[in-house]
Every structure is written in structure tokens, then in C-alpha cells.
């Protein structure tokens, strides 16, 4: 009787939804470029990790029917000019080191003769050495302060490479102090500069340049190699040549090398020339293409959040409108470049934090209530009353109890839950004077289980009965552990078996073996895939959440029982959110079916907010 008014009002609401006016837009294809969007504003997104920028713009004044979508571009920004120049100087310095090494110090002893020919260097005269050394020294001295500034700059800090810069500076200073004569100092200095050069992150433009050069080089190389090796090995020259390398004549190797070097040089020159013509032009990268939704059109503006940005770069954005004939409008460009900032609090996780606080708060609250001594009612769980019975039976029969805390390590909550159950079972066992055996698959679990069982024996007032050797490590390997358990169970025939923790495929092997020796078996796990096997083969199974509740039940302490009430609050929260969400989603599809686009659009926004923001 009580429910009828609600049902009636829901029906009435749905009827009203269907009756709302319908908005339709007339599609009109234009061949001309659409009018551009305007007032593009780019702002750092507040409360994020420093990787997002919010964009907002006014829609193109053209009819919404003709605009298919908006394309968002961002510029491939370069670093500040000074930064770029410094990088280039460091690069040059590296080449200088390379070029000067041999003229300064001659070839290292034992260097093969034809290797010397490869460098086209002669053993330098003392004057040449002197000159080269002076030049290197002056270059270095002028550059060192700049490198120091770089190493201390915000830039280095951000990219976390100042340690390399520091190491490089140290090596270079040693080098300058040591003079020119030390081969080892020179080597280390060269390596230091190379390191520095290597560690400076490239801008996107530079990356593109390098890619282009590499590609040109590779094409040139393959073109030379393929014709020659294909003649020798046929179509599959690449694999074949690697397998039958011994058959490649030495002369062919030599001529290949020469022609390749030549071709590479040409290709690189050509690539550099081509790149040079492109430098200076602004390059845009398409970030996304978004379609305006009904609500956007009504509001006349749209927004988008550019993600996955680098917080050390500055970005310029532009937005263009695209009509149905795929023609782009003139762009709306943001006034100035922005770079994303990082804030200490991650706002994406606000909703999650609230949920965490509610769920945890409920548990804490009920534990608190329980401590005040108010009685708490909780229902019974069948499997748990069997614990005492199982221990008792083992004592009667004079056989042992087997307890397995799963096969995972202590970084799994199920193992911890298993250990807490163990503490209660061990206490009961100590009181009954039954022998309890705990083989473990992890060393840390063995350690923790020993602590636990020892304490339980102490609590039961029988510390002398505790035997450390009954809690032992077998092997980390899942099936090695099971092979051992299977053999052990069939030989020692424990009267009661507990499986409490994370189990995988071994669940059924254990349960079946236990069954064949006629043991009472009680299992508890939160592995959905293994539950059916325990349910089928064990006497009692604690399913999922019941397993975590077990230790609270077994302890019987009021504050532990309080946590169960807290969990129930969590479930109630789930129920409320699900019912609410389902209602909204249903209303959305009813509105859509009825053709009420405006209402549908509003509802869609709400449902999306629920799913994308609150429940993420």
C-alpha cells in the first residue's frame, strides 16, 4: 500500500519527460569554409599532476547543422632560444673532443694499422698537439660557466638530470686541472660531455629532425646493401646474410662499407638541407577532434581538456571548426602559450577520497560504538561454528590439524586475513592440546605465522607446548608446494584441514586429497575462480567477504564485530548509488526513446559525471 504513491509519481515523471518539446536541427551542407570559432582561452587545469590544460571557446556562429566537429591543435613548441643554443654548443664540444683526441694523443698503443687509415689522421707533430690542446682548453673554459648555470637551472631540476651535469662539471674541472698530458683525464672528460649531451631532453622539433635524418640514412644504407646482398643470397637477403655471414667475401664487405658511408653522407646532407628549409614554420599537431553536443550548441561554447602534456613545456593551442564537407575554418588561436602546473593535491581523486572516507569512517565509527559497550547484533556464519568442532575432533582422534595460509606472500591482504584466522585456530588448538602444522609457501609468511602461533600458545597459557618446527617453509613454487602437501596429507592424515588465504589451481588438489583421507575441511578465500572448487569439495567454505569477517567472528571481541557493521554501511552505500545511477540511466534512455533531446542531453551529462568523475 505504502509503495503506490512512489510508483505513480515515477510514472507521472516519465510521462512528463516524454511530453517535453522536441528540438531538431536542420542539416545544411555548405561548400564554403565555415565561420571560425572565437575567444579560445587556454588555462592550466587546477589540482592536477601538471599534465592538463583546459580549453574553452565560443562556437562558430554558423548553423549548428553544418558544423560537424571542432579540431584542436597544439604547437610543437621548442625550448627557449638560449637553451637551444647552449645545447648546440655542448654538442659541438663533443664533436671537438672526438676530432681532437687522436691528433692530440696519437693512436693508443696496439691500434691496428688499417684502423689508423680509417681515421685519415697522421701521428701529430708536437706543434699540432699544442695548438689542438689550447683550442680545446679555451672552448672548455668559456663553456664551463654556462654548463654550471644549466646544471643549477630550474630546467635541470625539473628533468632530474642535474646529477649528470654535476658529474660532467667535476670531470671537466679535473681535466682542466690535470693539464693536457693525461690520456685518462681526457677520456673521462670526453665521456662526461657525451653524457651531458645525451641527458639533455630533446624538444619535439629536434626529435623530428633526428628521426628524419635517421630515416634518410637508413634508406640510403639499405639501398646500397640490398642490391649487393640480394645478388649473393636472393630475396631473403636480410636473414640469410646473418645466418651465412661466413660466405660473404671479404672484398664485398670492404666495398659495401665504402659505398655505404658515401651514401649515408649524401643522405644526411640532403636531409639536413630539407630540414633547414622547414625550420621556422610553426608546426601544429592535431590533438583531438570533438563533436559539439546538443548542450554545447545551446550554450554556444565548448570546452576540452588537453591531457598528457609535459609540465616543462609551453603550449600554444588553436581550434578550427570543420563542416560536413570536411572543410576547416580559420583558426581561433589562444592568446599566449601556457604550460601546465603541478599542484600538491590531485583533484581527480577527490570523489574517491570522499568514498574512502565514508567507507573507512563507517568502520571506525562502529568500532568506536562497539567500544562503548553497546551490544551489536550480527548474524551467524555456518562455517565458523565448525572450527571448534574440527579442532575437537582432531584432538579426539589424536591426529594433527593442517593450516594453509594460501600461497601468496605477506603483501596480500588475504594472507594477512589467513594469519589472523590462524591465531584463533591455534589458540583453540592450544587449549585442546592438539598439534597444529603450518607449512608455508613463503619465507615471510613462515616468520609471521611463527609469531602468531607462539603468541596464541602464550595467550592460551601453554607457551611450553609451542613447537617452532611445525611451522616451516616448503618452497615458493605453487606446484612444488602442492606436491609436498599432497604427499604429506596422504601420509600423516590430518583430521582437520584449514585453507585460508589466496589459492589458485591448487585449491582442488588440496580439497580432493583432504577429502580422500576423510578430513574435515574448512576453506576461506576471496578468489572467485577457485570458490566453486572449495564449495564443491569442502565441508564449509567462507565466500569472499565472509572470509575477511571470519577473524572478527572468531575473536568475538566487540570492537572487531563493530567493523562488520561498518562493512554493512559500505554495502548500503553501494546499494544507494546503484539504485540512483540505474534510475538516472533509465530515465536517460526513456527520454531518448521519447525523442526529448534536451532532457536526454542533460541527463547524459549527469550520468556521465557520475560514471566518469565520481566513480573513477
Amino acid at each position, binding site marked *: 500500500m505504502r509503495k503506490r504513491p512512489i510508483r505513480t509519481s515515477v510514472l507521472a515523471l516519465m510521462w512528463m519527460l516524454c511530453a517535453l518539446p522536441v528540438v531538431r536541427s536542420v542539416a545544411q551542407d555548405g561548400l564554403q569554409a565555415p565561420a571560425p570559432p572565437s575567444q579560445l582561452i587556454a588555462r592550466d587545469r587546477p589540482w592536477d599532476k601538471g599534465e592538463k590544460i583546459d580549453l574553452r571557446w565560443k562556437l562558430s556562429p554558423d548553423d549548428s547543422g553544418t558544423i560537424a566537429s571542432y579540431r584542436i591543435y597544439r604547437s610543437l613548441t621548442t625550448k627557449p632560444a638560449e637553451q637551444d643554443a647552449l645545447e648546440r654548443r655542448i654538442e659541438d664540444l663533443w664533436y671537438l673532443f672526438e676530432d681532437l683526441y687522436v691528433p692530440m694523443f696519437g693512436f693508443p698503443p696496439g691500434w691496428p694499422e688499417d684502423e689508423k687509415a680509417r681515421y685519415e689522421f697522421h701521428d701529430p707533430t708536437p706543434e699540432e698537439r699544442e695548438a689542438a690542446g689550447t683550442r680545446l682548453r679555451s672552448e672548455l673554459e668559456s663553456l664551463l660557466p654556462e654548463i654550471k648555470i644549466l646544471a643549477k637551472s630550474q630546467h635541470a631540476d625539473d628533468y632530474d638530470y642535474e646529477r649528470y651535469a654535476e658529474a660532467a662539471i667535476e670531470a671537466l674541472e679535473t681535466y682542466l686541472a690535470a693539464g693536457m698530458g693525461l690520456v685518462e683525464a681526457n677520456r673521462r672528460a670526453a665521456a662526461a660531455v657525451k653524457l651531458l649531451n645525451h641527458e639533455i631532453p630533446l624538444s619535439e622539433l629536434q626529435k623530428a629532425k633526428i628521426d628524419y635524418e635517421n630515416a634518410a640514412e637508413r634508406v640510403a644504407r639499405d639501398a646500397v646493401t640490398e642490391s649487393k646482398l640480394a645478388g649473393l643470397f636472393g630475396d631473403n637477403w636480410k636473414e640469410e646474410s646473418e645466418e651465412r655471414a661466413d660466405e660473404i667475401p671479404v672484398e664485398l664487405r670492404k666495398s659495401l662499407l665504402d659505398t655505404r658511408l658515401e651514401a649515408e653522407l649524401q643522405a644526411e646532407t640532403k636531409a639536413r638541407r630539407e630540414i633547414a628549409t622547414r625550420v621556422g614554420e610553426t608546426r601544429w599537431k592535431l590533438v583531438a577532434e570533438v563533436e559539439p553536443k546538443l548542450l554545447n550548441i545551446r550554450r554556444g561554447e565548448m570546452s576540452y581538456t588537453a591531457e598528457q602534456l609535459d609540465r616543462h613545456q609551453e603550449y600554444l593551442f588553436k581550434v578550427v571548426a570543420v563542416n560536413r564537407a570536411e572543410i576547416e575554418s580559420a583558426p581561433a588561436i589562444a592568446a599566449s602559450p601556457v604550460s601546465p602546473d603541478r599542484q600538491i593535491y*590531485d583533484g581527480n581523486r577527490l570523489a574517491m577520497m570522499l568514498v574512502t572516507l565514508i567507507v573507512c569512517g563507517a*568502520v*571506525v565509527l562502529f568500532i568506536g560504538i562497539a567500544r562503548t559497550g553497546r551490544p551489536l547484533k550480527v548474524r551467524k556464519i555456518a562455517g565458523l561454528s565448525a572450527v571448534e568442532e574440527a579442532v575437537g575432533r582432531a584432538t579426539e582422534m589424536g591426529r594433527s590439524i593442517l593450516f594453509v595460509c594460501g600461497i601468496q606472500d605477506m603483501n596480500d591482504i588475504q594472507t594477512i586475513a589467513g594469519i589472523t584466522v590462524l591465531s584463533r585456530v591455534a589458540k583453540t588448538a592450544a587449549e585442546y592440546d592438539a598439534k597444529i602444522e603450518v607449512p608455508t609457501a613463503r619465507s615471510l609468511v613462515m616468520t609471521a605465522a611463527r609469531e602468531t602461533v607462539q603468541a596464541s600458545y602464550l595467550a592460551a597459557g601453554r607457551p611450553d607446548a609451542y613447537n617452532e618446527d611445525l611451522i616451516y617453509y616448503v618452497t615458493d613454487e*605453487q606446484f612444488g608446494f602442492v606436491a609436498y602437501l599432497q604427499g604429506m596429507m596422504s601420509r600423516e592424515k590430518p583430521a582437520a584441514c584449514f585453507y585460508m588465504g589466496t589459492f589458485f589451481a591448487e585449491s582442488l588438489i588440496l580439497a580432493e586429497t583432504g577429502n580422500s583421507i576423510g578430513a574435515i575441511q574448512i576453506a576461506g578465500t576471496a578468489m572467485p575462480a577457485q570458490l566453486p572448487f572449495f564449495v564443491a569439495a569442502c565441508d564449509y567454505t567462507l565466500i569472499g567477504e565472509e572470509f575477511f569477517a571470519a577473524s572478527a567472528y572468531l575473536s568475538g571481541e566487540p570492537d572487531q564485530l563493530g567493523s562488520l557493521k561498518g562493512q554493512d554501511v559500505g554495502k548500503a552505500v553501494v546499494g544507494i548509488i546503484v539504485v540512483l545511477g540505474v534510475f538516472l540511466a533509465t530515465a536517460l534512455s526513456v527520454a531518448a526513446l521519447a525523442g526529448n533531446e534536451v532532457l536526454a542531453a542533460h541527463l547524459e551529462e549527469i550520468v556521465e559525471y557520475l560514471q566518469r568523475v565520481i566513480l573513477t
Partner: protein
Amino acid sequence: MKRTIPLLITAIGGFVLIIAFFSSYTQSWGEVAAIWFDILAAIAFILGGGNLMKIHLKKISDRKAGWAYSGVTLIAFLTTLIIGLGKIGVNPSEQFPDYAWSGSYREVGGPFWWLYEFAFKPLTATMFAMLAFYVASAAFRAFRAKNIEAILLLGTAFIILLGRTYAGVWVTGWLPEWLEGLKLENLTVTIMKVFNTAGNRAIMIGIALGIVSTSLKVLLGVDRSYLGGGEE
């Protein structure tokens, strides 16, 4: 002291990680803690391995029943350990041919690989394969239609078992098109997508709540059995 400090360590470690999760600067702390855990677990191998040796040596020296098998275990353990830790019979890696220790200890063709391929793998895989037998005996023994719950369990298993072989096609292949949804292979899909989804979801939500409350109990010191019982 002996109990208060560990409780403090637990609470601080846990709550710091929870708070760290919500700040942009400290989100990676969880991963660091996971790496540290791996290191701790690897060091703990010394405890586990030592314990293994101790137990078996004791069995041998006591001449307990079956002490010879302890000998087998010890020999297998030590052989594998020495070959593996010593990278015996392993070639250097291809990038660094001049570093004798740079090769992979698992190199194909090496002695450690041999132990893996011809002892570790067949032994563990065969243990795994024994499940085929246990599944059969469990099906025979445990799947009895005692009540509605049991009927649902075995009925579903029945449909899936049939639906996932050619037998399913034989049994219901004659159904007309408008009853296509009842063909076993399609029924299988419906069961999986609807009932199985609903059940699994409820279990997962429940487990998540159970884990939250267990974690909280541990962090708040309500449940401190792992440190040894209630009293100081």
C-alpha cells in the same frame, strides 16, 4: 616497547601510503613500497632456505622414517642453487661479451635451463595436470542435486561443459532460428554475460569492503594477532 613500536610502524606506514595516494607529488610511493617488499621477500629467502636445510638435515641425522627422501631434496636444492647462483655454464651476454658474468642465468642450453626444462617444468606441469583427474572425481562425488543451490551449480556447469564442445552443437543444433537464444552455445554466452557478471560483481564489491575493513583493523591496531596476541 616491544609491541608499541611495531604497531606504530604499521600504522604510520599504512596511513602515509594512503595519504600519499591523493597527492600529485607522492603517488609513486606505493610502487616504491612494492619494490622494497620484493627486496625484503628476497632477503627472507635466507630464512626459508635455511629452515628447509635445517629440517631436512635434522631428518637425516635423526634417521627418521623416509630420511633418504630428505637427502634427495637436499641434493636437488643445493645443486640447483649452486648452478643458478654461480651462473655455471652460461655464456656472456651479446652486448658485453667481455664480461663473464653478464649472461642470463636462464640461458637456453645451459645447466640451469636444463634443470628448469627437464625437472622443474615437467614436475610442476604434471602436478597441474593432475587437476584433470581431481576435477572428474569431484564432479562425480560432489555435484549432487541436493537442493536448489546445488541444482543451479551443477546445471550451469552442465550447460557450459556441453556448450563448449562440439556436443553442444549436436544436441541443440536443430533448434529453429527464432529459438536461437536457446542453443547451447548461445545459452553459454548469456549465462556468462548476465548471471556470471552479476555474481562476480557482488563478490568483488564484497571482497573490496572486506579488504578495507581488514586493512583498517590492522592499521588501527584492533587486529594485532600477527604481532602476537592482545596482552603486552
